[in-house]
């Protein structure tokens, strides 16, 4: 394999990693602050993509579409939090899983009711279409580079929010001791709604950004949700830094595993069965990674609580 191809695959891994981070960051924030397992996070990703496709179709502006995705998903998140999730904080995880699973079904069928069963059209904006030639002669799609940049910008923004702002202090305080910050006069229920909406908005943004290069359809969020759970388990539940490192690890393992494992098998067996066996092993690679990390550090890479 040539170095150029390898470099391109590393970029692909990074790109899928940072998009996973947008999903995982919200999930881990919500779990960290509220102790809630939110299976409906994938549904919010879908809401973002559908909102973006609708607005892009009406206005033709991709930027407006992104804003709409962020706003629609955050609004859906805030609504769901006040109507449903709020009643679940005191319950055990099984109740939360059941209720948020029900939300997946409601969102999916609701979306089908409004938009129909056929996939929607959402495309990369003209300004970002095509490829650029990077140093070393790698021709790489401009849109994917933009995704990497946006993902890194969001990660920096979250870091700033979490460590440099009053809201961040409250979020961290909420993670450590819920009762105490309530006793200190912080409106905990407003904080929860805000954190939930923030997480939802990030998921919606990811849905819109990825929707432009994938298929905008009902049920698009669930496969990503599974990966996002793998990411936060690897990174350590509740840690944003863990989510970033975990997402990059998962993105790189997934992409490079898919390329390198069939190549590796080709050294030992004939090409046709190498392709089959290699890709079968590649789809297991991230779960093997997760198992290995958990053996080494049972609470994940940056998980504080034992």
């Amino acid at each position: 394999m040539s170095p150029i191809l390898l470099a391109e695959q590393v970029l692909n891994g990074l790109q899928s990693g940072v998009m996973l981070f947008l999903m995982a960051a919200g999930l881990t924030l919500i779990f960290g602050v509220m102790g809630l397992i939110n299976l409906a996070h994938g549904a919010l990703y879908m809401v973002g993509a559908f909102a973006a496709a609708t607005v892009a179709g009406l206005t033709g502006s991709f930027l407006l579409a992104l804003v709409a995705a962020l706003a629609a998903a955050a609004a859906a998140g805030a609504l769901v939090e006040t109507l449903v999730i709020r009643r679940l904080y005191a319950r055990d995880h099984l109740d939360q899983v059941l209720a948020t699973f029900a939300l997946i079904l409601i969102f999916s069928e609701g979306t089908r009711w409004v938009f129909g069963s056929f996939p929607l059209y959402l495309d990369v904006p003209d300004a970002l279409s095509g490829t650029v030639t990077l140093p070393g002669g790698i021709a790489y799609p401009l849109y994917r580079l933009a995704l990497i940049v946006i993902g890194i910008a969001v990660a920096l923004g979250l870091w700033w929010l979490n460590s440099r702002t009053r809201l961040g202090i409250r979020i961290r305080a909420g993670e450590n001791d819920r009762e105490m910050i309530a006793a200190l006069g912080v409106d905990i229920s407003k904080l929860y709604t805000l954190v939930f909406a923030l997480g939802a908005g990030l998921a919606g943004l990811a849905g819109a950004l990825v929707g432009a290069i994938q298929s905008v359809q009902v049920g698009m969020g669930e496969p990503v949700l599974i990966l996002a759970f793998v990411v936060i388990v690897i990174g350590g539940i509740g840690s944003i830094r863990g989510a970033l490192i975990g997402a990059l690890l998962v993105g790189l393992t997934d992409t490079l595993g898919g390329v390198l494992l069939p190549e590796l098998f080709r050294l030992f067996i004939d090409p046709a069965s190498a392709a089959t066996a290699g890709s079968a092993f590649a789809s297991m690679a991230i779960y093997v990674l997760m198992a290995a990390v958990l053996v080494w550090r049972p609470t994940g890479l940056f998980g504080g609580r034992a």
Partner: protein
Amino acid sequence: MSIRTLLAAASLAALAASAQAEVKVGMITTLSGGGASLGIDTRDGFLLAMQKAGRDDVEVIVEDDQQKPDVAVQIADKMIQSEKVDILTGIVWSNLAMAVVPAATAQGKFYLSTNAAPAQLAGKGCNPNYFAVSYQNDNLHEAAGAYAKSEGFTKPFIMAPNYPAGQDSLNGFKRFYGGELAGEVYTKLGQTDYASEIAQIRASGADSIFFFLPGGMGISFLKQFADSGVDLPVMGPAFSFDQNILQAVGDAALGVKNGSNWSKDLDNEANAAFVSGFEEAYGRLPSLYAAYGYDTANLLLSALDKAEPSDAEAFRAALKEAAFDSVRGEFSFDTNQHPIQDIYIREVIQEGDVFTNKIVATALEDRSSAYVEECSMK
């Protein structure tokens, strides 16, 4: 009124209902989840033919299998045991068909396939009560392989998801292409990002691409491929270019060649009536799944004109005749009860605002399936 009279009245009413509907058809298909558009078109095509025929002695019961084999099996059991259907139909996916069809035919029910037709059921597992009206799974891929050969491509890069139908697909392509490959890649089922495969295609020096990625997978691949700057001729089976998917892909699919046994511009009377009837009834263009559903219903009706399903021998013989006007033109059954039909190459074009297909060549004439010899029915 005593309970006894009530019961008598109820059973009379039941008798009256069953007298009205003499034949019960159970349709199991996918109406929710990511694969719903395929099942919805299958159902709509089937019901359109029923409605046109205007027969009130056939009752169609439709249920959603959610694209899950276990759900499909439960529905089939319920339809056979308590609804007492005579005929089953409608399954889109091969893995669901494998879970339902052998058990249903073993219980003496007829199964008419509107889509899925895995190799197992065409060869050793063929059954006198099983008819595939659509194709045999390999057919459309074989057509693409034949087309690649006739176009003189020498280094195609081929790709499919790693599951039985994906492996059948690449084998079908290779069966009729027979030359050298630039690469052969199996992707994950349900994969949505193809950046890494596209990079491999770019590096492989391929002169063309063949891929089989049904549903959302194909939409994702085509959009990403169009944006990658790799400019190679693309081929595939019709599944990734059906009427509903094309609208979501947009410009990215223009010019793609795909193997299909049906197209809306096929020039025959039955097809013209089907396409205009479908547009009028549902306000959208039909896909090939709708065409298979429509043909299946018409085949069923043609057989019902001659025999009752209760007389299995006669009904089977009536089905085998295939005495109906197929929207695909000439149509007959081979000994393994899979179609013998022409398979075409279509090109994706734009008509006004709508993306659709037109036929550009006939890839395989009177094509049967590769597994006829393995079937014990002669």
